[in-house]
């Protein structure tokens, strides 16, 4: 590596180190600093953003960076593929994907920090140093996760991200509900991470390496194993790759809140809204999908794993969207929309649409951060009231919040030309062309398509109930004002939500025949990439066939038209029902379906039952068994010996004469026995 001055990548570790320093500073000195520790966080994330942008530019200039920073440990590998030694290390991999993600994460983190000044400091919260310290640690973990160059390092920071979300969701620990939600979030994701850890161990034990990139990567090793038709752990290589891939996917499903591990996410709304923004847009939940993108080469080797990813994604998209339709709490609606949107990303990645998935990840980061921060602004306006039925009419009183929120909503619903449209459309297009060959994927596509309609409904239901109509409560008539720290991040994100879609307008590019799909070029290594980690290499590996309705352009337009039409239909439905001065609770008319949706398809119930109805009684039974049977045997041994000696001690009468008699008797007896053996009586 050249000196720091000439090589921009020399600064790369600082991206993660800055927030770590902010964590330490805020934790130790936060109480004595102005703004209670917010400033170190803001400076650190701004620094991270600056360096991330330098990285971004450098990657754009055709450079990439892959270096080991520090070797954690090494040793004998005993791998199934014959690799003898294995090293576990911390390394940095900066390629188009991670450079892009670094910018997204550090930008959102910076905006969240700034917004917190208005949301937390201005509201006179206690425990702010703790809050900013945890935010710093959160940002550190996520950034380190993003530039991780191997699976183990990714897992480690993946776990740390989980810890930070636990701490932040439980920030208001004096309530009953926040600690419970935090515990649930950690436990459900831990359950997923259990599979992830098996996956990490299995991959390390199989291929003797955990690297993402280069000749030494496990992806390359897996390809070789499949080509050699090797047998790994009793399975043929293809099956084993599928199994390990699905194990890692367990962690992804947990963190990205995909069915059936989605239940923690709505509860996680117990945390401060700023934290929700960070969790949903750029860190915790994004980590799962990012991991799939990061090791996409591995999944590309296994059509089965991809199909499962796609199907789970499509199903979750629809499943969560339907639940979002009936929620009354503005944050709950957003929570279900997050689950649904990550379903789209999984669908996109699962059908081999690497660019589409990452594109949606990027757009979603911006518009979801915007929506959450907007919701945070609304909550400030409403004096911490979150029920949408208490709002209404905020449009005129808070125009900045309204228009930025609207931009986010349009992006979320997928209305042209806002960012969400372009990426969602690309996901659905990729799903459609593969789906025409694969019935499973077609089903996933169909679910994703129907979910577009529901997305339109819940998004605009939320917008109309919150901002339109007449104020339905006193606070809504006289809202609390918001300051610049709230407005500035909203404006930045609003602009991004409106515009980021323009970087990859695939339909326009096709129709007009111009090269404006910049993100695809970016991810395809047009500017610079690490070998093996590019879109077309992934596409070559993915074994899905594709076909079109008519020509490619026709299919593309058809797909775009369908999704846009459905989104508009959803928005129009919401407009009809809710954009009136005094809206009714129309959703209650759904009858049984309403109840089912309000109870979230009873997903929480069965999972709580698994924990409290099954595991806990099982534990208690084990405890009883332990106390009675196992300890009973131990105590029984002691009881028996005590009882026996209690009987035996009775020959000790305390009367000397008896002892003398026993002595004599014993002596005579011994004499007789010895005599008998000696042959006296023969």
């Amino acid at each position: 590596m050249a000196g720091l001055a000439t090589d921009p990548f020399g600064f790369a570790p600082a991206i993660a180190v800055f927030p770590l320093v902010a964590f330490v500073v805020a934790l130790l000195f936060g109480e004595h600093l102005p703004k209670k520790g917010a400033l170190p966080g803001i400076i650190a994330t701004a620094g991270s953003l600056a360096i991330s942008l330098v990285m971004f530019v450098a990657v754009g200039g055709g450079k990439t960076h892959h270096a080991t920073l520090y070797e954690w440990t090494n040793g004998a590998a005993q791998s199934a593929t014959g690799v003898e030694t294995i090293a576990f290390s911390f390394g940095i991999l900066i390629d188009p994907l991670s450079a892009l993600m670094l910018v997204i994460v550090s930008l959102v983190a910076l905006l969240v920090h700034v917004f917190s000044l208005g949301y937390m400091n201005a509201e006179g919260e206690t425990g702010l140093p703790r809050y900013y310290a945890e935010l710093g640690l959160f940002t550190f973990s996520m950034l380190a996760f993003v530039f991780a160059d191997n699976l183990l390092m990714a897992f480690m920071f993946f776990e740390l991200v989980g810890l930070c979300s636990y701490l932040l969701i439980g920030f208001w620990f004096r309530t009953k509900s926040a600690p419970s939600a935090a515990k649930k979030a950690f436990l459900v994701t831990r359950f997923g991470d259990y599979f992830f850890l098996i996956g990490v161990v299995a991959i390390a034990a199989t291929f003797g390496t955990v690297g993402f990139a280069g000749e030494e990567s496990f992806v390359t090793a897996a390809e070789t194993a499949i080509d050699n038709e090797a047998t790994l752990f009793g399975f043929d290589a293809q099956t084993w790759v599928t199994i390990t891939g699905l194990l890692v996917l367990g962690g992804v499903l947990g963190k990205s809140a995909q069915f059936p591990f989605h239940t923690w996410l709505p509860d996680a709304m117990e945390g401060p809204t700023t934290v929700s923004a960070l969790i949903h847009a750029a860190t915790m939940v994004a980590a799962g999908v990012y991991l799939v993108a990061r090791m996409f080469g591995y999944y590309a080797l296994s059509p089965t794993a991809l199909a499962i990813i796609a199907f789970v994604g499509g199903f979750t998209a629809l499943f969560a969207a339907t639940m979002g339709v009936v929620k009354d709490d503005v944050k709950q609606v957003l929570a279900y929309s997050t689950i649904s949107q990550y379903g789209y990303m999984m669908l996109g990645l699962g059908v081999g649409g690497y660019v589409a998935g990452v594109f949606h990840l990027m757009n979603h980061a911006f518009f979801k951060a915007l929506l959450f921060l907007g919701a945070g602004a609304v909550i400030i306006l409403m004096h911490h009231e979150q029920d949408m039925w208490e709002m209404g009419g905020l449009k005129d009183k808070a125009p900045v919040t309204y228009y930025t929120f609207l931009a986010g909503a349009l992006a979320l619903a997928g209305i042209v030309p806002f960012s969400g449209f372009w990426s969602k459309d690309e996901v659905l297009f990729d799903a459609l062309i593969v789906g025409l060959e694969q019935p499973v994927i077609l089903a996933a596509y169909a679910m994703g398509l129907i979910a577009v309609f529901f997305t339109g409904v819940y998004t605009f239901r939320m917008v109309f109930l919150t901002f339109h109509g007449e104020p339905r409560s006193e606070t809504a008539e006289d809202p609390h004002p918001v300051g610049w720290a709230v407005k500035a991040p909203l404006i930045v994100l609003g602009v991004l939500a409106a515009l980021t879609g323009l970087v990859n307008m695939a339909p326009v590019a096709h129709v007009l025949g111009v090269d404006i799909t910049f993100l695809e070029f970016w991810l395809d290594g047009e500017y610079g990439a690490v070998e093996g980690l590019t879109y077309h290499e992934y596409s070559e590996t993915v074994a899905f066939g594709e076909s079109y309705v008519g020509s490619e352009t026709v299919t593309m337009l058809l797909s775009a038209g369908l999704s846009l039409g459905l989104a508009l239909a959803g928005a129009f439905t919401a407009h009809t029902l809710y954009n009136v001065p005094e809206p009714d609770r129309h959703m209650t008319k759904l009858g049984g379906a309403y109840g089912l949706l309000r109870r979230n398809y009873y997903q929480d119930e069965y999972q709580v039952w698994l924990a409290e109805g099954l595991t806990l009684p099982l534990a208690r039974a084990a405890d009883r068994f332990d106390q009675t049977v196992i300890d009973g045997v131990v105590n029984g041994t002691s009881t028996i010996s005590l009882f026996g000696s209690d009987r035996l001690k009775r020959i000790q009468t305390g009367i000397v004469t008896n002892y003398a008699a026993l002595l004599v008797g014993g002596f005579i007896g011994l004499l007789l026995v010895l005599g008998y053996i000696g042959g006296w009586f023969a």
Partner: protein
Amino acid sequence: MMIEALIAVALLGALVTFVAPNRIAGKLAFAISLVPAAISLWLFTAFDGSGNALLDGELAFESQTAWLEIGDYSVSWFVGLDGISLPLVVLTTILCTLAIVSSWTPIDERESQFYGLVLFIEANLIGVFAALDFFVWFIFWEAVLIPMYLLIGIWGGPRRKYAAIKFFVYTNVASLVMFGSFIALVFGLGDSVTSFALPEIATAMVNGGPEGLFGLGGTALASVVFVGMFLGFAVKVPVVPFHTWLPDAHVEAPTPASILLAGVLLKMGTYALLRFNFTMFPDQVELYAVPIAAIAVISVIYGAMLALAQTDLKRIVAYSSVSSMGYVILGLVASTQFGVGGATFQMISHGLISGLMFMAVGVIYNATHTRMVTDMSGMADRMPIAVGILIAGAFGYMGLPLMSGFAAEYFIFFGSFGSELLAYSALFTSVAMFGIVIVAGYLLFALQRTVFGPYSLETDYDVGRAPVHDVASMVVLLGLIIALGVAPDLIFDMITDAIDPIIGGER
């Protein structure tokens, strides 16, 4: 002579403390215990050994003096350290110092005797890890029991007598089984050994094994001895189903005794398993790998399930120790570099983390006089720093990356997943790994109920901030935990160096 110095300082310190006035005993014992801690840290930096102490390794700080002749066998004072025992000695001296500091608050009667016993136990523990002659080792091994028995029996909780006697008798009976087995082995080895020096016996075992005894053939005798010794050590570790003394002892023991019990005394069992069973009996390890792995997995899952059902914080940590020790057994039986190395690493790591957990629980107990999960809520409100450290320790226990617990568990899982010796290794490992979910379940559940939520306390004690000395010692432990988690090679290198001869050869 450095090891002798270590033991002598602790022993003399124990005597001096024993006769010192109660008033100054705590501070005096602390000052004295700093000497062994300093010496052991110096040993750590000056360590120049390599290889395994029992299998022709280069011993560090070796010292051997002829002592007795018993029949055809000679007994000698033989001590020395290798990469396995040195970290354990350092762990012992550090934990003893911290245990003394954490006794300042709770121990308020017969102080000089208490601190004297703690120093006495320290001397014996160092002896256990350093001794390389079976007789010397066994003397230290048994001598550890006495002070611990007294610590529990005199300064313990309401059921201290029951717990102390159960602890003493149970582990002592186990020692008897182990002792008998080992002596049978030595006699079975016949003329190939002339002393009780462990390296000689280990070499004889590896080079051919016993000839036989009492009509048993060599292989049969080796198997019987292996099983007997395994059972003997299994009580000490403890593994299911020999674990029931542990929760009773922990619950009744005063906090400092719990720290030593969980932190170091349990490691005697695993250390002995590694030194005897898994070093001297390679064939038997292979033969019994599957049942041992099954016991390990059952310990992990069953211990964790038991912890889930408890409402006493100390019982929770006690049962979770059973679970953690299950990982150690799994790593040992895997017989791979990462498996055995990870098991040794886990001994150190668990010593630090469980010590920290007991310390934190003790601090809360000192303030509230209850350990019942149901009696308190919202402690984070009153003792933010102590609770913060408790949470950090709990996450360390759950295997949070960048803390030593994760490194240890990851090494064990990685080592055992691909083990060629153990059949169904991937399956065993995967099942055992489920422990990381249950451990998160019970610790988070306990945290949710005790330290979070609105503040309330069933007992009417005034809860203030934790004392500075307690916080300081917890911070030291937390620092060590994080240091080992970030840089496991601080000790993992020397461990693997000592492990390699054990798993060497074609295995």
